[in-house]
Structure formats: structure tokens, C-alpha cells
């Protein structure tokens, strides 16, 4: 807490999470982040999302300042229901969509009943 000005600020993005039949869809609003600034990692039970924003040149006088400064950083805990091998990410117009595939064991399975 020594110097607030120099502290690297992080912000959390607005997030929608919904369930589809065989996947979980996460939708995160990350305005100002492009593909090269985005990093999505899975470390053990943690899904870590980092988004570096393209910083505007800050010279000049601020007349209105509502956009929170700082890069995006979010951590989510994922459990065994998520198949680590089938996580897909796409970034479009500042929206990151993550498709987390559910593992085979939790997917609904249809069992054929044979009548004799």
C-alpha cells in the first residue's frame, strides 16, 4: 500500500455463465483486449483469464473518466465436471466466449431399454 499510483490495477469483467446440453458457456466482456493480449490458462482446478488492454496515450487532461483503468484478471475454480481437454476460447469485438466441455461422466446418457 505504499504507492497507490504505481500499483498495478486489475479489473474484473462482467460475466455470463450458462449451461448447454454438453458444455458450459462463459461470456466475458473485455473491451479493449485483442487476441495477442489475451491469455487463458488452466492450472489444476483454476481457470485463469488475463487480458491486457491496449492502453491509450494518457497525455492530456481528463474531462470525464469512467472507464476503470487496469488490465483484466479473473480466476474461476473448475471442478471435475469440466473436461480439461475441451476448452475452447474465442474473442470477438471485446467479448471472450469460453466453451467448457463437460466430461463424459456427467453428460446425460441415454440407456436403451430392450423389451423382450
Amino acid at each position, binding site marked *: 500500500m505504499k504507492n497507490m*499510483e504505481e500499483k498495478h490495477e486489475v479489473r474484473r469483467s462482467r460475466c455470463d455463465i*450458462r449451461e448447454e446440453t454438453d458444455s458450459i458457456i462463459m461470456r466475458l466482456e473485455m*473491451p*479493449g483486449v485483442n487476441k495477442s493480449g489475451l491469455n487463458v490458462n488452466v492450472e489444476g482446478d483454476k481457470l485463469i483469464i488475463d487480458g491486457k488492454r491496449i492502453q*491509450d496515450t494518457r497525455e492530456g*487532461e481528463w474531462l470525464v473518466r*469512467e472507464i476503470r483503468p487496469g488490465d483484466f484478471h479473473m480466476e474461476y475454480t473448475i471442478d471435475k465436471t469440466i473436461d480439461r481437454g475441451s476448452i475452447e476460447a474465442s474473442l470477438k*469485438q471485446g467479448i471472450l466466449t469460453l466453451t467448457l466441455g463437460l466430461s463424459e461422466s456427467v453428460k446425460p446418457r441415454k440407456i436403451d431399454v430392450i423389451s423382450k
Partner: protein
Amino acid sequence: MELMKRNPRKSDDAWNNLMTLQREINSLFENDFFPASDGLFDRTYSPAVDVVEKADEYLVSCELPGMAESDIDVQVADNVLTIKGEKKDDSEDSGKRWYKRETWQGSFQRTIPLPSGIESDKIRGELENGMLRLTLPKREEVKPKQITVKVK
């Protein structure tokens, strides 16, 4: 006479610590975490805006994630900048299980009063990575001029 030290207070000074705390608390209020709305038709939910004045132009940034050019309408009339549009949700809402819903949908409008002296026909706008950036150049007569004074 000896020269005075510029900052005679030591770092472990209790008063100095108190001043540091005050400064840190004040810095919490420097950023508007929630977009403020001043315009008559502005909604509570509206995209955050930054306005920066430079020597020869004004820069307006607006966070519009997930929006296409066709969803946004930018107008300048009588020195009032209006950014309006419709934020649509691409996913259908039928019978899905939501765990979290933090984003907002719907139409929005932001009106920003501009200082006079803007060349309104030279305003440029670009939309990239969900950020709208507008460049509003100042008129020649309001730009700060460097006047060199010759010393004889």
C-alpha cells in the same frame, strides 16, 4: 545560513502516515466505478466513457463490447455528442440454465456536452475490440499556439 531540507518529516512520523491514509482513501473516489448518467434519456445502465483533452483534439473512448458498427449511432449537434445504440444478446434465452448474468442488454444513450470550438465535420470514429474511439479535432482558433519571442 544553512539550506533547509525540503521535506523535514520523517517517514515514521504519525502525522505523515495519517496524510498517506487520507491520500489513499481519496484516490478511491477518483475513478467513477459506475458510469454516471447526466442526460435526460440516459439509462442507469450505460457504457462507460472517457474524455481526454489534448492540445489539438479531444479523444472520446466508450466501452461497447460485443457491438457492431450497425448497432451504434454517433451524432454531434449543437456541441452535444450523442452515442446511442442497442446492445443485443446473441444467445437465446429459452430454457437455459444461467449460473451468472452480469451483462446488460437493451438500448442505451449517452449525451456528452462538448466544449465549443470543435470541427464537427472532421470527427473520426473507429470501433475496435469493443472500444469505440472518437477523435474530435479542435478548430484552428482554439488550438494553443506557440509564439516564439525573440530576445535581442
